[in-house]
């Protein structure tokens, strides 16, 4: 799975929790999940579990701390997929 496919799936997973629809229209690898998309920080665990289910990977809690942008999530998932 290439990075653009991963990004498409990441954005699809994030969409139900996005509060800023405008930021979603112009989403990029640099888009901040919390600051730009306004996803509630308490929803991050739900997001991570959805990533695990969708990509069939395990994400350590420590790894989640380094995820700020959509690109961070894509890189993390890409690394797990090998």
């Amino acid at each position, binding site marked *: 799975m290439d990075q653009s496919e991963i990004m498409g799936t990441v954005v699809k997973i994030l969409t139900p929790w996005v509060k800023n629809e405008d930021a979603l229209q112009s989403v990029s690898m640099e888009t901040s999940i919390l600051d730009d998309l306004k996803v509630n920080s308490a*929803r*991050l*665990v*739900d997001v991570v579990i959805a990533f695990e289910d969708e990509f069939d990977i395990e994400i350590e*809690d420590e790894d989640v701390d380094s995820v700020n942008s959509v690109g961070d999530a894509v890189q993390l998932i890409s690394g797990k997929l090998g």
Partner: protein
Amino acid sequence: MAEENRATPGHALKPEEVLALVPQQPPFRFIDEIIELDSEHIVAQYVFREESDFYRGHFPGRPITPGVILIETMAQAGVVAFGIYLYALEFSAEEVESMLTVFTDASVDFSGQVLPGDRVTTTGRLKFFRRKKLKAEVEMRLDDGTVVCSGELSGMGVPR
């Protein structure tokens, strides 16, 4: 022995110990008893007092327990009490006592009414407990088995 347990992370609290740690108090305490508790589920009961103040306004002459109170009742069992139990499995008693569980999100359907004097039984089943966030599938029933509300509730442990 009790002192030893207080300092030992991984201690499974008894239902009465969990109940003593639930921070909500009357008139905003909606758990009388925890009747089942393990790392996968909790079952708790509460009898709605006929003298509760909210019945005066909801509704005058026809008291019905407000839906928000039913959600709070399910949350006190399925998120707060259950969260205390799960948190105590991983952390010391001091850490458990220094934490407060705040409500983060809910999705609930209502399918029945709870009247003054009714006893309700709430069952909470673990969906996940990660990074101090607990999500539980919850269901509330009357004594005759009628499901009055059900859904998913989540809460997160934060420092007091």
